[in-house]
C-alpha cells in the first residue's frame, strides 16, 4: 500500500497502531452513545453546574434517581453541564426513544413524578407535563404546542464552538466526548502533523487570548516553542476571580475534555512536557469534573507516555490556589503553583524564558485553549472566517443582573451589545423599565451607558468604548441602579483583593474607596474628584500588574458615561446611596497584611 519505498518500514506500522488506538476508543464511544440515545429507555439529563446547583438541580436529580439504574431502571440518568439558558434552570432534557428531545424548564422535585409518568407509563396515558418548554428534533403530536429549542431567541443568535457539547454530554464520561468526535483533533495532530504545523494553524486562526489581555495566542506560543529545555510547562488559567464571569468554570464543568484536548495540543505545538490546570479552591464542581476528566484521559492513553500511540508524551495535573484575585495574573499564578504568595513577578525574565520552577512556560486562559481542538480539527483559515477582522471566533458572554434571561451565551464576535441584551437577553428584567448601565470585563473593567450599547463585541471596539470585553461578564443594571454605589462595590473588591506588593495599588485602592464611601454618604470633601484622578493615575504608572494599572478604570468610565450623576453625588444633591438609607455598605473588614 505504501509506494514510497524510501519510507522506513516501521513508520507505517506505528501509524497503523496509532490509528487503531483512537479508532478503538471511538468505536466504543459510538456504541455507548447509541445505547443511550437509541435504546428503549428515555435518557434523562439534568443540567448541573454551579448555576444549576444554585437553582436547585440537585434535588431534582435526587427525585429522578428512583427511576434510574439505582432504582427501577426505567430511564438512563445523567448529570450534564450547563445549557447556558440559565433562567430555565433547573433544566431537565429528555431524549425520548425513537422520537425527539423534550426540555422541561424550572423543574421542582415535586413535579418529577408527573413529568416522568408521561415518558414511562405511555405517552397517551399521561399528558405532557406543563413544565415542558421546548422540543428539539422532529415535532410530534405531543410537542406540537412547544417551541423548537434551536429556534428560541437565545439559541438562534448563538454561534456554538466552545459550547457545542454543553448540556449534551456528561462531563464525567470521556466516551460521550469522544462520541462527538472529541480527541479527533489530537489524534490528527500527533499522527499526521508536526508541532510547527499545529502552531501555524493557531497563528493563522487569529485567535487572541480570552483572559482579558487579548494577546495573539499563536505569537505567545511561538515564544515558547523554540526552547530545547527538557521540562516546559503550559498552564491553563481558570482562577476566574472576576465576579460576574463564570464561563471558564462553565467549560470545566460542562465539557472538561475539550480543555484537556486543547491543553495537550498546546503542549504538542510548543514541545512542552507538562500541563497544569489552575483553579481556585472551593469551586468543587469544576474541580471535580477536571480531576475526573484527567484521570479518564490517563486511563485511555490520551495523557501520559506515547499519547494515542505516538511519540508524544505529556503529563497533566490540577493545581489549586487559595482565595486571591491577583493569582489570575500570569506571574502571580506561577508563584501560586509554586506554593508561594501569589504576587506578580518583575518582568523580564518573561515566563517563556523562566516561568514555573524557572522553566520555560506559557499561560493561557481556559477559553483560549478550548478553541484549539476546533481550530486543529478544521483549520486556522476556517476559524478566521468567524468573527471580525481583528477578533476572530466567538465570545462567551455571561449575562447577569437585571436582565430577563440571564445565562451564558456564545456569540460571534461583531454582534452588538444591544443584540445580546435584546435578542438574547430579552431586554430588561420584568418589573424594571430600562437598562441604564452595564458593567463589563470584571471589576477592573468599566461601566458603559446606553449610548455605547451599539458597540460591537470585539476586543478593540470594546476597548475604545472605555469598557473592556475582558473575560466576558456583562452585568446589567436597571434604571434604579446607583452608579456611584456600583463603582464603590467594584473598588471595594479591588481594594480587598490588592495583593499589597505595590504600594500605589495597595494604598490607592483604599484612598479611592474612602472617597467613594464619602460620596455615597453625601460627605464628599472639596478636591475629592481631583484626588480620585491623581490617585488613579499614580496607580496606573506605579503598579506592576493590571490590578493596579487598571484600578482607576471603573471610575474613569463612570465619569465618561455618568459624569452628571457623579457630579450630583459629589455635590450632595442626591439621596444617600445604598440599601440602608445611610450610604453605608457591608464590607469585609479584613485586608491582606
Amino acid at each position, binding site marked *: 500500500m505504501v509506494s514510497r519505498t524510501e519510507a522506513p518500514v516501521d513508520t507505517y506500522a506505528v501509524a497503523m497502531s496509532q490509528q487503531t488506538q483512537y479508532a478503538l476508543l471511538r468505536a466504543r464511544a459510538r456504541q455507548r452513545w447509541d445505547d443511550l440515545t437509541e435504546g428503549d429507555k428515555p435518557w434523562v439529563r439534568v443540567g448541573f453546574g454551579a*448555576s444549576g446547583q444554585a*437553582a436547585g438541580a440537585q434535588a431534582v436529580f435526587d427525585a429522578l434517581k428512583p427511576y434510574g439504574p439505582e432504582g427501577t431502571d426505567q430511564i438512563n440518568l445523567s448529570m450534564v453541564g450547563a445549557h447556558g439558558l440559565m433562567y430555565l434552570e433547573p433544566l431537565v432534557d429528555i431524549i425520548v426513544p425513537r422520537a425527539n428531545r423534550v426540555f422541561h424548564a424550572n423543574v421542582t422535585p415535586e413535579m418529577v413524578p408527573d413529568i416522568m409518568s408521561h415518558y414511562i407509563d405511555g405517552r397517551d396515558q399521561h399528558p405532557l407535563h406543563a413544565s415542558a418548554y421546548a422540543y428539539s428534533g422532529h415535532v410530534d403530536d405531543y410537542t406540537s404546542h412547544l417551541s423548537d429549542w434551536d429556534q428560541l431567541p437565545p439559541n438562534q443568535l448563538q454561534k456554538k464552538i466552545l459550547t457545542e457539547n454543553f448540556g449534551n454530554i456528561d462531563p464525567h464520561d470521556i466516551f460521550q466526548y469522544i462520541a462527538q468526535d472529541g480527541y479527533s483533533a489530537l489524534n490528527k495532530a500527533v499522527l499526521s502533523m508536526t508541532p510547527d504545523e499545529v502552531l501555524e494553524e493557531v497563528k493563522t486562526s487569529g485567535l487572541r487570548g480570552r483572559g482579558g489581555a487579548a494577546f495573539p495566542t499563536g505569537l505567545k506560543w511561538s515564544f515558547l516553542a523554540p526552547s530545547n529545555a527538557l521540562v516546559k510547562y503550559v498552564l491553563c488559567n481558570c482562577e476566574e476571580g472576576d465576579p460576574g464571569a*463564570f464561563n471558564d468554570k462553565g467549560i470545566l464543568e460542562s465539557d472538561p475534555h475539550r480543555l484537556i484536548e486543547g491543553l495537550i495540543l498546546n503542549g504538542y505545538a510548543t514541545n512542552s512536557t507538562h500541563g497544569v490546570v489552575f483553579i481556585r479552591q472551593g469551586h468543587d464542581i469544576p474541580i471535580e469534573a477536571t480531576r475526573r476528566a484527567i484521570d479518564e484521559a490517563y486511563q485511555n492513553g490520551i495523557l501520559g507516555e506515547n499519547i494515542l500511540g505516538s511519540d508524544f508524551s505529556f503529563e497533566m495535573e490540577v493545581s489549586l490556589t487559595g*482565595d*486571591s484575585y491577583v493569582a489570575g495574573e500570569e506571574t502571580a499564578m506561577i508563584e501560586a503553583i509554586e*506554593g508561594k504568595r501569589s504576587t506578580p513577578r518583575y518582568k523580564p525574565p518573561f515566563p517563556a524564558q523562566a516561568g514555573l520552577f524557572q522553566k520555560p512556560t506559557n499561560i493561557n486562559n481556559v477559553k483560549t485553549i478550548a478553541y484549539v481542538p476546533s481550530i486543529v480539527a478544521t483549520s486556522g483559515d476556517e476559524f478566521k472566517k468567524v468573527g471580525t477582522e481583528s477578533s476572530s471566533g466567538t465570545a462567551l458572554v455571561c449575562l447577569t443582573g437585571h436582565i430577563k434571561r440571564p445565562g451564558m451565551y456564545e456569540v460571534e464576535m461583531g454582534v452588538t451589545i444591544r443584540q445580546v441584551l435584546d435578542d438574547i437577553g430579552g431586554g430588561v428584567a420584568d418589573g424594571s423599565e430600562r437598562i441604564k448601565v452595564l458593567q463589563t470585563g470584571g471589576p477592573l473593567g468599566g461601566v458603559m451607558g446606553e449610548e455605547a450599547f451599539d458597540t460591537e463585541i470585539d476586543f478593540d471596539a470594546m476597548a475604545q468604548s472605555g469598557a473592556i470585553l475582558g473575560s466576558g461578564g456583562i452585568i446589567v443594571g436597571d434604571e434604579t441602579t446607583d452608579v456611584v454605589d456600583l463603582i464603590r462595590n*467594584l473598588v471595594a473588591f479591588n481594594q*480587598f483583593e490588592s495583593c499589597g506588593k505595590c504600594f500605589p495599588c495597595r494604598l490607592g485602592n483604599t484612598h479611592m474607596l474612602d472617597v467613594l464611601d464619602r460620596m455615597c454618604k453625601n460627605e464628599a470633601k472639596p478636591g475629592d474628584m481631583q484626588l480620585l484622578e491623581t490617585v488613579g493615575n499614580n496607580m496606573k504608572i506605579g503598579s506592576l500588574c493590571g490590578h493596579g494599572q487598571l484600578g482607576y478604570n471603573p471610575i474613569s468610565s463612570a465619569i465618561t458615561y455618568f459624569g452628571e450623576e457623579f457630579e450630583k453625588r459629589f455635590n450632595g444633591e442626591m439621596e444617600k446611596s445604598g440599601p440602608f438609607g445611610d450610604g453605608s455598605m457591608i464590607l469585609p473588614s479584613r485586608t491582606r497584611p
Partner: protein
Amino acid sequence: MTTSQQQSRPELRERIRGALESQRTDKERVPSITVLSSLLAVQDDLHYIPDEAIEETAIFCNATINDVWSVASFYTNFRFTPPGMTTVDVCWGPTCHLMGAQKVLDAVQDELGVDSEETSADGKITLRYSTCLGACAQAPVIARDHVLKGRANPDSARQYISDLQQELENGIAH
C-alpha cells in the same frame, strides 16, 4: 490560639500529618506538593490552620515557619481558629450587589446575631463574605459549605438560616 476542644494536641499533630501525607495517595502520578497545597489539604480536613499545622507543614515541605506563615496569612480562605459546624457564604460581588445582596447579608447577620464575618454565639454557624460564588445568573447567591443556593432574598435567607439552625440542632448535619 484557640485549643481544639475535640482532641488533645498529639492527636491533632497525627491528624495533620495524615492530611499532609494524603496528598501522596496517587502512587502513579504524584502531584506537585507545595506549601500552599499542603495548607489547603490541612484546612480541607480540619477546617482551620492550627499552629501545629504551620510547624508540620514546614517540616513536611522542608520550608521555614516564616515561609509557611507568609503563605497562610496571604490567602483569605485560611483561618486560624476553628469555624462553626457549618460555614455560610454570602456573595457581595457586583451582580449579587445589584440584585440585593446587601439586604440578604444584613438579614443573615441579623438571624445569626453577628455583625461581620464571625461565628454565631452558639458556635454553630460561621459567616463568610464571598467575592463570587460563580453562579451569578442565579444572583443573589448564598452557600453552605460550598453548596450553592440562588435567587435569595432577605426572607428566604432568614428561612435558610433558621432551617439550618434547626438541622444542626437535630444533629443531622456533619
